[in-house]
Protein backbone atom coordinates (compact mmCIF):
# COMPACT_ATOMS: atom_id res chain seq x y z
CA UNK A 1 0.00 0.00 0.00
CA UNK A 2 2.86 2.33 0.88
CA UNK A 3 6.42 2.09 -0.29
CA UNK A 4 9.28 4.42 0.55
CA UNK A 5 12.51 3.69 -1.31
CA UNK A 6 15.76 5.22 -0.14
CA UNK A 7 14.20 8.53 0.86
CA UNK A 8 16.42 11.46 1.88
CA UNK A 9 15.46 14.83 3.30
CA UNK A 10 17.71 17.52 4.73
CA UNK A 11 16.32 20.73 6.20
CA UNK A 12 18.20 24.04 5.89
CA UNK A 13 21.06 22.47 3.89
CA UNK A 14 24.33 24.37 3.98
CA UNK A 15 23.46 26.38 7.09
CA UNK A 16 24.34 25.98 10.76
CA UNK A 17 20.81 24.64 11.26
CA UNK A 18 21.33 21.84 8.75
CA UNK A 19 19.36 18.80 9.84
CA UNK A 20 19.50 15.48 8.05
CA UNK A 21 15.96 14.35 8.88
CA UNK A 22 15.65 11.28 6.65
CA UNK A 23 18.76 9.34 5.63
CA UNK A 24 17.98 6.66 3.08
CA UNK A 25 14.73 5.54 4.65
CA UNK A 26 13.08 2.36 3.36
CA UNK A 27 9.62 1.20 4.38
CA UNK A 28 6.96 -1.06 2.89
CA UNK A 29 3.44 -1.38 4.20
CA UNK A 30 1.10 -4.11 3.04
CA UNK A 31 -2.67 -3.58 2.83
CA UNK A 32 -4.33 -3.52 6.24
CA UNK A 33 -1.11 -3.07 8.17
CA UNK A 34 -1.40 -0.72 11.16
CA UNK A 35 2.08 0.49 12.04
CA UNK A 36 2.95 2.41 15.19
CA UNK A 37 6.02 4.64 14.94
CA UNK A 38 8.18 5.53 17.93
CA UNK A 39 11.50 7.27 18.38
CA UNK A 40 13.14 10.10 20.29
CA UNK A 41 12.97 13.79 19.53
CA UNK A 42 14.25 14.58 16.06
CA UNK A 43 14.36 10.91 15.06
CA UNK A 44 12.42 11.75 11.88
CA UNK A 45 8.97 10.40 12.76
CA UNK A 46 6.99 13.46 11.67
CA UNK A 47 9.35 13.96 8.75
CA UNK A 48 8.47 10.45 7.60
CA UNK A 49 4.75 11.23 7.70
CA UNK A 50 5.24 14.59 5.98
CA UNK A 51 7.31 12.94 3.25
CA UNK A 52 4.43 10.54 2.61
CA UNK A 53 1.82 13.33 2.74
CA UNK A 54 3.86 15.52 0.40
CA UNK A 55 4.17 18.56 2.65
CA UNK A 56 7.42 19.29 0.78
CA UNK A 57 9.33 17.44 -1.96
CA UNK A 58 11.89 14.84 -0.84
CA UNK A 59 15.57 15.34 -1.79
CA UNK A 60 15.97 11.82 -3.17
CA UNK A 61 14.13 8.51 -3.30
CA UNK A 62 10.63 7.45 -4.32
CA UNK A 63 7.29 7.43 -2.57
CA UNK A 64 4.59 5.04 -3.82
CA UNK A 65 1.04 4.74 -2.58
CA UNK A 66 -1.09 1.83 -3.76
CA UNK A 67 1.41 1.13 -6.54
CA UNK A 68 1.31 4.71 -7.86
CA UNK A 69 4.49 6.78 -7.78
CA UNK A 70 3.46 10.00 -6.00
CA UNK A 71 6.95 11.45 -5.54
CA UNK A 72 6.14 14.32 -7.90
CA UNK A 73 2.64 15.05 -6.63
CA UNK A 74 2.00 18.03 -4.32
CA UNK A 75 0.22 17.60 -0.98
CA UNK A 76 -3.26 18.49 -2.21
CA UNK A 77 -3.11 15.89 -4.98
CA UNK A 78 -1.81 13.09 -2.76
CA UNK A 79 -4.71 13.90 -0.43
CA UNK A 80 -6.86 11.81 -2.77
CA UNK A 81 -5.25 8.69 -1.28
CA UNK A 82 -4.51 9.85 2.26
CA UNK A 83 -6.50 10.60 5.39
CA UNK A 84 -4.68 12.61 8.06
CA UNK A 85 -5.05 13.58 11.69
CA UNK A 86 -2.61 16.06 13.20
CA UNK A 87 -1.23 16.50 16.69
CA UNK A 88 -2.81 19.96 17.05
CA UNK A 89 -6.60 19.54 17.22
CA UNK A 90 -6.93 23.01 15.63
CA UNK A 91 -5.32 21.83 12.40
CA UNK A 92 -7.77 19.15 11.32
CA UNK A 93 -10.97 21.10 10.85
CA UNK A 94 -12.11 24.45 9.42
CA UNK A 95 -13.19 26.36 12.57
CA UNK A 96 -15.48 28.79 10.72
CA UNK A 97 -17.44 26.04 9.01
CA UNK A 98 -20.15 23.78 10.35
CA UNK A 99 -19.52 20.19 11.41
CA UNK A 100 -21.57 18.96 8.44
CA UNK A 101 -19.67 21.23 6.04
CA UNK A 102 -16.35 19.92 7.35
CA UNK A 103 -17.47 16.34 6.68
CA UNK A 104 -18.70 17.30 3.22
CA UNK A 105 -15.28 18.81 2.43
CA UNK A 106 -13.62 15.55 3.47
CA UNK A 107 -16.10 13.48 1.47
CA UNK A 108 -14.89 15.25 -1.69
CA UNK A 109 -11.20 14.63 -1.06
CA UNK A 110 -9.61 13.71 -4.34
CA UNK A 111 -12.62 14.71 -6.41
CA UNK A 112 -12.99 17.71 -8.66
CA UNK A 113 -14.88 20.40 -6.78
CA UNK A 114 -17.35 21.99 -9.14
CA UNK A 115 -20.59 23.88 -8.86
CA UNK A 116 -22.68 21.09 -7.38
CA UNK A 117 -24.03 21.57 -3.85
CA UNK A 118 -21.31 21.58 -1.22
CA UNK A 119 -23.51 19.63 1.21
CA UNK A 120 -26.58 17.75 -0.01
CA UNK A 121 -29.61 16.64 1.95
CA UNK A 122 -28.72 12.98 1.45
CA UNK A 123 -25.26 13.65 2.86
CA UNK A 124 -26.71 15.26 5.98
CA UNK A 125 -28.51 12.00 6.75
CA UNK A 126 -25.38 9.94 6.19
CA UNK A 127 -23.22 12.20 8.38
CA UNK A 128 -25.83 12.18 11.11
CA UNK A 129 -25.59 8.41 11.31
CA UNK A 130 -21.81 8.44 11.21
CA UNK A 131 -21.60 11.07 13.94
CA UNK A 132 -24.11 9.16 16.05
CA UNK A 133 -21.82 6.12 15.81
CA UNK A 134 -19.07 8.15 17.49
CA UNK A 135 -21.22 8.34 20.59
CA UNK A 136 -20.23 11.93 21.38
CA UNK A 137 -23.63 13.52 20.74
CA UNK A 138 -22.29 15.45 17.74
CA UNK A 139 -25.13 14.22 15.49
CA UNK A 140 -27.44 16.85 16.98
CA UNK A 141 -24.90 19.63 16.44
CA UNK A 142 -24.36 19.29 12.67
CA UNK A 143 -24.79 23.04 12.07
CA UNK A 144 -22.46 24.08 14.91
CA UNK A 145 -19.15 25.61 13.85
CA UNK A 146 -16.25 23.19 14.32
CA UNK A 147 -14.38 25.96 16.15
CA UNK A 148 -16.76 25.57 19.08
CA UNK A 149 -15.83 21.91 19.70
CA UNK A 150 -13.41 20.68 22.38
CA UNK A 151 -10.03 19.27 21.40
CA UNK A 152 -11.18 15.68 21.81
CA UNK A 153 -14.35 16.27 19.81
CA UNK A 154 -12.31 17.87 17.05
CA UNK A 155 -9.88 14.96 16.90
CA UNK A 156 -12.81 12.54 16.75
CA UNK A 157 -14.38 14.59 13.96
CA UNK A 158 -11.04 14.78 12.11
CA UNK A 159 -10.67 11.00 12.41
CA UNK A 160 -14.13 10.50 11.01
CA UNK A 161 -13.30 12.92 8.17
CA UNK A 162 -10.07 11.03 7.46
CA UNK A 163 -11.87 7.68 7.30
CA UNK A 164 -15.06 8.93 5.64
CA UNK A 165 -14.11 7.90 2.12
CA UNK A 166 -11.89 4.94 2.88
CA UNK A 167 -8.36 6.30 2.22
CA UNK A 168 -5.61 4.02 0.98
CA UNK A 169 -3.49 5.28 3.82
CA UNK A 170 -4.25 6.85 7.20
CA UNK A 171 -1.55 9.06 8.74
CA UNK A 172 -1.82 9.84 12.45
CA UNK A 173 0.78 12.25 13.79
CA UNK A 174 0.66 11.96 17.61
CA UNK A 175 -3.02 12.70 17.32
CA UNK A 176 -3.74 12.09 21.01
CA UNK A 177 -0.71 13.92 22.42
CA UNK A 178 -2.59 17.19 23.02
CA UNK A 179 -5.52 15.51 24.79
CA UNK A 180 -6.04 14.66 28.45
CA UNK A 181 -5.47 10.95 29.23
CA UNK A 182 -9.16 10.03 29.33
CA UNK A 183 -10.01 11.78 26.07
CA UNK A 184 -6.86 10.34 24.51
CA UNK A 185 -8.04 6.84 25.40
CA UNK A 186 -11.46 7.50 23.83
CA UNK A 187 -9.87 8.82 20.63
CA UNK A 188 -7.43 5.90 20.48
CA UNK A 189 -10.26 3.39 20.88
CA UNK A 190 -12.11 5.17 18.11
CA UNK A 191 -8.96 5.01 15.99
CA UNK A 192 -8.74 1.26 16.46
CA UNK A 193 -12.39 0.84 15.60
CA UNK A 194 -12.32 2.94 12.42
CA UNK A 195 -9.17 1.19 11.21
CA UNK A 196 -10.65 -2.24 11.90
CA UNK A 197 -14.10 -1.47 10.46
CA UNK A 198 -12.68 -0.05 7.23
CA UNK A 199 -9.65 -2.31 6.97
CA UNK A 200 -7.40 0.74 6.70
CA UNK A 201 -3.65 0.80 6.26
CA UNK A 202 -2.26 3.19 8.86
CA UNK A 203 0.88 4.83 10.19
CA UNK A 204 0.54 6.16 13.73
CA UNK A 205 3.23 8.16 15.49
CA UNK A 206 3.07 8.07 19.25
CA UNK A 207 5.35 9.11 22.07
CA UNK A 208 3.68 6.63 24.41
CA UNK A 209 5.51 3.30 24.26
CA UNK A 210 2.61 1.41 25.85
CA UNK A 211 0.25 2.76 23.17
CA UNK A 212 2.75 1.77 20.50
CA UNK A 213 2.83 -1.75 21.88
CA UNK A 214 -0.89 -2.10 22.58
CA UNK A 215 -2.08 -0.84 19.19
CA UNK A 216 -1.37 -1.83 15.63
CA UNK A 217 -0.01 -4.90 13.92
CA UNK A 218 3.55 -3.72 13.53
CA UNK A 219 5.92 -1.39 15.35
CA UNK A 220 8.85 0.56 13.95
CA UNK A 221 11.37 2.60 15.86
CA UNK A 222 13.28 5.44 14.26
CA UNK A 223 16.55 7.08 15.03
CA UNK A 224 18.52 9.67 13.08
CA UNK A 225 16.33 9.42 10.03
CA UNK A 226 16.37 5.64 9.75
CA UNK A 227 14.29 2.74 10.92
CA UNK A 228 16.35 0.88 13.51
CA UNK A 229 13.76 -1.58 14.74
CA UNK A 230 10.87 -3.23 12.91
CA UNK A 231 8.68 -5.72 14.75
CA UNK A 232 5.55 -7.47 13.52
CA UNK A 233 3.40 -10.51 14.09
CA UNK A 234 3.98 -12.69 17.15
CA UNK A 235 7.11 -10.75 18.08
CA UNK A 236 5.12 -7.52 18.30
CA UNK A 237 2.27 -9.16 20.19
CA UNK A 238 4.54 -10.49 22.93
CA UNK A 239 6.51 -7.25 23.25
CA UNK A 240 6.75 -5.48 26.62
CA UNK A 241 7.98 -1.97 27.34
CA UNK A 242 11.12 -3.30 29.00
CA UNK A 243 11.78 -5.50 25.97
CA UNK A 244 11.40 -2.53 23.74
CA UNK A 245 13.84 -0.39 25.72
CA UNK A 246 16.37 -3.24 25.67
CA UNK A 247 15.93 -3.79 21.96
CA UNK A 248 16.33 -0.08 21.39
CA UNK A 249 19.59 0.14 23.32
CA UNK A 250 20.92 -2.84 21.42
CA UNK A 251 19.93 -1.41 18.03
CA UNK A 252 20.91 2.19 18.68
CA UNK A 253 23.90 1.63 20.92
CA UNK A 254 22.55 4.12 23.46
CA UNK A 255 19.68 4.28 25.96
CA UNK A 256 16.28 5.39 24.72
CA UNK A 257 15.51 9.08 25.09
CA UNK A 258 12.88 8.54 27.75
CA UNK A 259 12.26 12.22 28.47
CA UNK A 260 9.43 12.23 26.03
CA UNK A 261 8.65 8.57 25.70
CA UNK A 262 5.95 8.08 28.25
CA UNK A 263 5.81 4.79 30.06
CA UNK A 264 3.04 5.90 32.37
CA UNK A 265 0.28 3.40 32.92
CA UNK A 266 -2.62 5.77 32.33
Amino acid at each position, binding site marked *: MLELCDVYKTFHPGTVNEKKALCGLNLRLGPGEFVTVIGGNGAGKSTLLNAVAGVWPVDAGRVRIGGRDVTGLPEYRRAAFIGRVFQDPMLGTAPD*MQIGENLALAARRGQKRGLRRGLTRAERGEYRDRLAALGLGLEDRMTVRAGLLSGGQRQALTLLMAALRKPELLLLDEHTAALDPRTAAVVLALTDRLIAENGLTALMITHNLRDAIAHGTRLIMMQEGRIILDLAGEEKRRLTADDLLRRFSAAAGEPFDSDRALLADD
Partner: protein
Amino acid sequence: MGFAEYLSSLDPQALLQRLPGYAAQGVLWGVMALGVYITFRLLDLADLTVDGTFATGGACTVMLILAGWPAWAALTAAVAAGLLAGLVTGLLHTRLGIPAILAGILTQFALYSVNLRIMGMTANKSVSVDQYPLLLSSRQIPRAALIGVLLAAALTALLCWYFGTEQGSALRATGSNPAMSRAQGVNIDAMKVLGLMLSNGAVALSGGLTAQYQGFADVNMGRGAIVIGLAAVVIGEVLCAALFRRGAPFAVRLLFVAAGGVAYYLVVGLVLWLRLNTNDLKLFTAVIVALFLAVPQLQARRKSSFRAADRKEAQPRA
Protein backbone atom coordinates in the same frame (compact mmCIF):
# COMPACT_ATOMS: atom_id res chain seq x y z
CA MET B 1 -20.61 82.55 14.23
CA GLY B 2 -22.19 81.25 17.44
CA PHE B 3 -23.39 77.71 17.92
CA ALA B 4 -27.07 78.71 17.87
CA GLU B 5 -26.50 80.61 14.67
CA TYR B 6 -24.71 77.58 13.20
CA LEU B 7 -27.59 75.29 14.19
CA SER B 8 -30.20 77.58 12.71
CA SER B 9 -28.20 77.76 9.48
CA LEU B 10 -28.56 73.99 9.03
CA ASP B 11 -31.45 73.16 6.78
CA PRO B 12 -33.15 69.80 7.59
CA GLN B 13 -35.00 70.04 4.31
CA ALA B 14 -31.74 70.04 2.39
CA LEU B 15 -30.58 66.93 4.28
CA LEU B 16 -33.76 65.07 3.46
CA GLN B 17 -33.45 66.09 -0.15
CA ARG B 18 -29.90 64.85 -0.41
CA LEU B 19 -30.18 61.61 1.53
CA PRO B 20 -31.63 59.56 -1.36
CA GLY B 21 -28.63 60.51 -3.48
CA TYR B 22 -26.23 59.40 -0.79
CA ALA B 23 -28.19 56.19 -0.32
CA ALA B 24 -27.99 55.47 -4.06
CA GLN B 25 -24.26 56.07 -4.06
CA GLY B 26 -24.01 53.90 -0.96
CA VAL B 27 -25.69 50.95 -2.66
CA LEU B 28 -23.16 51.13 -5.49
CA TRP B 29 -20.38 51.03 -2.89
CA GLY B 30 -22.22 48.16 -1.26
CA VAL B 31 -21.43 46.14 -4.39
CA MET B 32 -17.78 46.97 -3.79
CA ALA B 33 -18.12 45.98 -0.11
CA LEU B 34 -19.36 42.53 -1.17
CA GLY B 35 -16.15 42.14 -3.15
CA VAL B 36 -14.01 43.25 -0.23
CA TYR B 37 -15.87 40.83 2.04
CA ILE B 38 -14.76 37.87 -0.13
CA THR B 39 -11.07 38.57 0.37
CA PHE B 40 -11.08 40.23 3.78
CA ARG B 41 -13.44 37.91 5.62
CA LEU B 42 -13.69 34.67 3.64
CA LEU B 43 -10.10 34.38 2.41
CA ASP B 44 -8.55 36.30 5.31
CA LEU B 45 -6.47 38.40 2.91
CA ALA B 46 -6.21 42.19 2.83
CA ASP B 47 -6.31 42.94 -0.90
CA LEU B 48 -5.23 46.47 -1.79
CA THR B 49 -5.63 45.89 -5.53
CA VAL B 50 -9.16 47.22 -5.26
CA ASP B 51 -8.15 50.90 -5.20
CA GLY B 52 -6.84 50.39 -8.73
CA THR B 53 -9.58 48.01 -9.84
CA PHE B 54 -12.35 50.43 -8.89
CA ALA B 55 -10.90 53.04 -11.26
CA THR B 56 -10.26 50.35 -13.90
CA GLY B 57 -13.93 49.41 -13.77
CA GLY B 58 -14.91 53.06 -14.16
CA ALA B 59 -12.43 53.71 -16.94
CA CYS B 60 -13.42 50.62 -18.96
CA THR B 61 -17.11 51.35 -18.62
CA VAL B 62 -16.85 55.00 -19.65
CA MET B 63 -14.49 54.40 -22.57
CA LEU B 64 -16.58 51.57 -23.99
CA ILE B 65 -19.81 53.53 -23.65
CA LEU B 66 -18.10 56.43 -25.42
CA ALA B 67 -17.12 53.94 -28.13
CA GLY B 68 -20.78 53.13 -28.63
CA TRP B 69 -21.13 49.98 -26.53
CA PRO B 70 -24.38 49.45 -24.64
CA ALA B 71 -23.98 50.08 -20.92
CA TRP B 72 -24.49 46.44 -19.90
CA ALA B 73 -21.81 45.26 -22.34
CA ALA B 74 -19.42 47.92 -21.09
CA LEU B 75 -20.05 46.82 -17.50
CA THR B 76 -19.44 43.19 -18.44
CA ALA B 77 -16.11 44.16 -19.96
CA ALA B 78 -15.30 46.15 -16.81
CA VAL B 79 -15.96 43.05 -14.69
CA ALA B 80 -13.68 41.05 -16.98
CA ALA B 81 -10.95 43.67 -16.48
CA GLY B 82 -11.48 43.38 -12.72
CA LEU B 83 -11.14 39.58 -12.86
CA LEU B 84 -7.89 40.07 -14.74
CA ALA B 85 -6.55 42.49 -12.12
CA GLY B 86 -7.39 39.97 -9.41
CA LEU B 87 -5.65 37.25 -11.41
CA VAL B 88 -2.45 39.31 -11.54
CA THR B 89 -2.46 39.91 -7.77
CA GLY B 90 -3.31 36.24 -7.18
CA LEU B 91 -0.43 35.00 -9.33
CA LEU B 92 2.02 37.47 -7.78
CA HIS B 93 1.00 36.13 -4.39
CA THR B 94 0.74 32.38 -5.01
CA ARG B 95 3.21 31.75 -7.83
CA LEU B 96 5.88 34.28 -6.88
CA GLY B 97 5.41 34.11 -3.12
CA ILE B 98 4.93 37.86 -2.66
CA PRO B 99 2.94 38.62 0.51
CA ALA B 100 -0.70 39.25 -0.41
CA ILE B 101 -0.74 42.80 0.87
CA LEU B 102 2.36 43.71 -1.16
CA ALA B 103 1.10 41.88 -4.26
CA GLY B 104 -2.06 43.98 -4.06
CA ILE B 105 -0.11 47.20 -3.68
CA LEU B 106 2.05 46.33 -6.71
CA THR B 107 -0.96 45.62 -8.92
CA GLN B 108 -2.73 48.72 -7.69
CA PHE B 109 0.36 50.80 -8.44
CA ALA B 110 0.64 49.35 -11.95
CA LEU B 111 -3.07 49.81 -12.57
CA TYR B 112 -2.65 53.60 -12.27
CA SER B 113 -0.67 53.56 -15.53
CA VAL B 114 -3.00 50.99 -17.07
CA ASN B 115 -6.03 53.11 -16.18
CA LEU B 116 -4.46 56.20 -17.76
CA ARG B 117 -3.83 54.19 -20.93
CA ILE B 118 -7.41 52.89 -20.93
CA MET B 119 -8.61 56.51 -20.75
CA GLY B 120 -6.35 57.58 -23.62
CA MET B 121 -3.74 59.21 -21.37
CA THR B 122 -6.17 61.62 -19.76
CA ALA B 123 -6.87 61.62 -16.05
CA ASN B 124 -10.59 62.21 -16.41
CA LYS B 125 -13.20 61.25 -19.00
CA SER B 126 -16.81 62.31 -18.77
CA VAL B 127 -19.79 60.60 -20.30
CA SER B 128 -22.99 62.60 -20.47
CA VAL B 129 -26.30 60.94 -19.76
CA ASP B 130 -27.80 63.27 -22.38
CA GLN B 131 -25.71 61.81 -25.17
CA TYR B 132 -25.22 58.21 -24.13
CA PRO B 133 -27.59 55.50 -22.92
CA LEU B 134 -26.29 55.11 -19.37
CA LEU B 135 -27.73 52.46 -17.08
CA LEU B 136 -28.03 54.93 -14.23
CA SER B 137 -27.23 58.54 -13.42
CA SER B 138 -27.34 60.95 -10.50
CA ARG B 139 -29.96 62.89 -12.49
CA GLN B 140 -32.50 60.15 -11.80
CA ILE B 141 -31.77 59.11 -8.26
CA PRO B 142 -34.75 56.77 -7.69
CA ARG B 143 -33.87 54.84 -10.83
CA ALA B 144 -30.19 54.75 -9.89
CA ALA B 145 -31.04 53.51 -6.40
CA LEU B 146 -33.40 50.86 -7.77
CA ILE B 147 -30.81 49.54 -10.23
CA GLY B 148 -28.19 49.60 -7.50
CA VAL B 149 -30.41 47.65 -5.12
CA LEU B 150 -31.33 45.11 -7.80
CA LEU B 151 -27.71 44.54 -8.77
CA ALA B 152 -26.55 44.32 -5.14
CA ALA B 153 -29.35 41.83 -4.41
CA ALA B 154 -28.50 39.79 -7.51
CA LEU B 155 -24.83 39.72 -6.58
CA THR B 156 -25.70 38.70 -3.01
CA ALA B 157 -27.86 35.85 -4.33
CA LEU B 158 -25.10 34.77 -6.71
CA LEU B 159 -22.45 34.78 -3.96
CA CYS B 160 -24.80 32.93 -1.61
CA TRP B 161 -25.31 30.20 -4.16
CA TYR B 162 -21.63 30.04 -5.08
CA PHE B 163 -20.33 29.76 -1.54
CA GLY B 164 -22.73 26.88 -1.00
CA THR B 165 -21.24 24.91 -3.88
CA GLU B 166 -18.37 22.44 -3.60
CA GLN B 167 -15.95 24.98 -5.01
CA GLY B 168 -17.27 27.84 -2.86
CA SER B 169 -17.00 25.62 0.23
CA ALA B 170 -13.40 24.81 -0.67
CA LEU B 171 -12.73 28.55 -1.00
CA ARG B 172 -14.19 29.23 2.44
CA ALA B 173 -12.21 26.34 3.91
CA THR B 174 -9.03 27.81 2.42
CA GLY B 175 -9.62 31.04 4.33
CA SER B 176 -10.63 29.24 7.50
CA ASN B 177 -7.83 26.65 7.70
CA PRO B 178 -5.32 26.35 4.83
CA ALA B 179 -3.49 23.33 6.32
CA MET B 180 -6.71 21.37 6.67
CA SER B 181 -7.80 22.40 3.18
CA ARG B 182 -4.60 21.05 1.64
CA ALA B 183 -4.98 17.82 3.60
CA GLN B 184 -8.51 17.53 2.19
CA GLY B 185 -7.17 17.89 -1.34
CA VAL B 186 -7.99 21.55 -1.92
CA ASN B 187 -5.62 23.44 -4.20
CA ILE B 188 -5.45 26.43 -1.91
CA ASP B 189 -3.37 28.55 -4.30
CA ALA B 190 -6.04 28.15 -6.98
CA MET B 191 -8.73 29.05 -4.44
CA LYS B 192 -6.89 32.21 -3.40
CA VAL B 193 -6.48 33.30 -7.02
CA LEU B 194 -10.15 32.58 -7.68
CA GLY B 195 -11.26 34.54 -4.63
CA LEU B 196 -9.10 37.53 -5.56
CA MET B 197 -10.56 37.45 -9.09
CA LEU B 198 -14.17 37.32 -7.88
CA SER B 199 -13.52 40.11 -5.42
CA ASN B 200 -11.94 42.39 -7.99
CA GLY B 201 -14.68 41.58 -10.49
CA ALA B 202 -17.26 42.87 -8.03
CA VAL B 203 -15.15 45.94 -7.29
CA ALA B 204 -14.81 46.75 -10.99
CA LEU B 205 -18.58 46.42 -11.37
CA SER B 206 -18.99 48.90 -8.53
CA GLY B 207 -16.50 51.26 -10.22
CA GLY B 208 -18.36 51.00 -13.52
CA LEU B 209 -21.69 51.79 -11.85
CA THR B 210 -20.23 54.66 -9.86
CA ALA B 211 -18.64 56.19 -12.99
CA GLN B 212 -22.01 56.18 -14.74
CA TYR B 213 -23.73 57.59 -11.67
CA GLN B 214 -21.33 60.52 -11.40
CA GLY B 215 -21.02 60.90 -15.19
CA PHE B 216 -17.26 60.50 -15.42
CA ALA B 217 -14.34 58.22 -14.74
CA ASP B 218 -11.30 59.59 -12.96
CA VAL B 219 -7.92 57.96 -12.55
CA ASN B 220 -8.07 58.83 -8.85
CA MET B 221 -11.63 57.69 -8.24
CA GLY B 222 -10.47 54.55 -6.45
CA ARG B 223 -8.12 56.26 -4.03
CA GLY B 224 -8.92 54.94 -0.58
CA ALA B 225 -11.63 52.63 -1.94
CA ILE B 226 -10.34 49.75 0.20
CA VAL B 227 -10.89 51.80 3.34
CA ILE B 228 -14.44 52.69 2.33
CA GLY B 229 -15.05 49.04 1.42
CA LEU B 230 -13.74 47.93 4.79
CA ALA B 231 -15.84 50.60 6.48
CA ALA B 232 -18.93 49.21 4.76
CA VAL B 233 -17.99 45.64 5.74
CA VAL B 234 -17.37 46.41 9.41
CA ILE B 235 -20.39 48.73 9.75
CA GLY B 236 -22.59 46.07 8.11
CA GLU B 237 -21.23 43.35 10.38
CA VAL B 238 -21.72 45.40 13.53
CA LEU B 239 -25.30 46.23 12.54
CA CYS B 240 -25.95 42.58 11.72
CA ALA B 241 -24.48 41.37 15.01
CA ALA B 242 -26.58 43.92 16.90
CA LEU B 243 -29.81 42.80 15.23
CA PHE B 244 -29.11 39.07 15.11
CA ARG B 245 -27.61 38.25 18.48
CA ARG B 246 -27.50 34.52 17.77
CA GLY B 247 -25.76 34.90 14.45
CA ALA B 248 -27.37 35.47 11.09
CA PRO B 249 -27.46 33.17 8.07
CA PHE B 250 -24.85 33.79 5.39
CA ALA B 251 -27.31 35.53 3.02
CA VAL B 252 -28.34 37.99 5.71
CA ARG B 253 -24.75 38.75 6.60
CA LEU B 254 -23.99 39.51 2.94
CA LEU B 255 -27.03 41.79 2.69
CA PHE B 256 -25.84 43.68 5.75
CA VAL B 257 -22.41 44.10 4.21
CA ALA B 258 -24.01 45.66 1.12
CA ALA B 259 -26.21 47.78 3.38
CA GLY B 260 -23.05 48.85 5.20
CA GLY B 261 -22.19 50.86 2.09
CA VAL B 262 -25.47 52.73 2.39
CA ALA B 263 -24.96 53.33 6.12
CA TYR B 264 -21.50 54.69 5.44
CA TYR B 265 -22.71 57.11 2.76
CA LEU B 266 -25.59 58.30 4.92
CA VAL B 267 -23.08 59.17 7.62
CA VAL B 268 -20.94 60.94 5.02
CA GLY B 269 -24.03 62.85 3.92
CA LEU B 270 -24.68 63.87 7.49
CA VAL B 271 -21.11 65.04 7.93
CA LEU B 272 -21.29 67.11 4.78
CA TRP B 273 -24.63 68.56 5.82
CA LEU B 274 -23.17 69.59 9.18
CA ARG B 275 -20.70 71.53 7.04
CA LEU B 276 -17.72 69.87 8.66
CA ASN B 277 -14.59 70.30 6.61
CA THR B 278 -14.76 67.73 3.80
CA ASN B 279 -10.98 67.50 3.85
CA ASP B 280 -11.36 65.73 7.19
CA LEU B 281 -13.59 63.04 5.71
CA LYS B 282 -10.76 60.56 5.16
CA LEU B 283 -9.45 61.02 8.68
CA PHE B 284 -12.99 60.50 9.94
CA THR B 285 -13.42 57.33 7.83
CA ALA B 286 -10.09 55.90 8.93
CA VAL B 287 -10.98 56.48 12.59
CA ILE B 288 -14.34 54.72 12.11
CA VAL B 289 -12.73 51.71 10.43
CA ALA B 290 -9.98 51.49 13.05
CA LEU B 291 -12.56 51.66 15.85
CA PHE B 292 -14.82 48.98 14.39
CA LEU B 293 -11.88 46.68 13.57
CA ALA B 294 -10.64 47.09 17.14
CA VAL B 295 -13.97 46.09 18.71
CA PRO B 296 -13.21 42.33 19.09
CA GLN B 297 -9.80 43.03 20.60
CA LEU B 298 -11.18 45.64 23.00
CA GLN B 299 -14.00 43.35 24.07
CA ALA B 300 -11.57 40.50 24.72
CA ARG B 301 -9.35 42.79 26.74
CA ARG B 302 -12.24 43.84 28.92
CA LYS B 303 -12.69 40.20 29.88
CA SER B 304 -9.03 39.44 30.45
CA SER B 305 -5.97 41.66 30.53
CA PHE B 306 -2.77 42.03 32.52
CA ARG B 307 -3.96 45.32 33.91
CA ALA B 308 -7.23 43.80 35.15
CA ALA B 309 -5.32 40.87 36.63
CA ASP B 310 -3.01 43.29 38.39
CA ARG B 311 -5.89 45.28 39.83
CA LYS B 312 -7.57 42.15 41.15
CA GLU B 313 -4.51 41.09 43.10
CA ALA B 314 -4.36 44.49 44.78
CA GLN B 315 -7.88 44.19 46.10
CA PRO B 316 -8.43 42.45 49.43
CA ARG B 317 -10.03 39.05 49.04
CA ALA B 318 -13.62 38.74 50.09
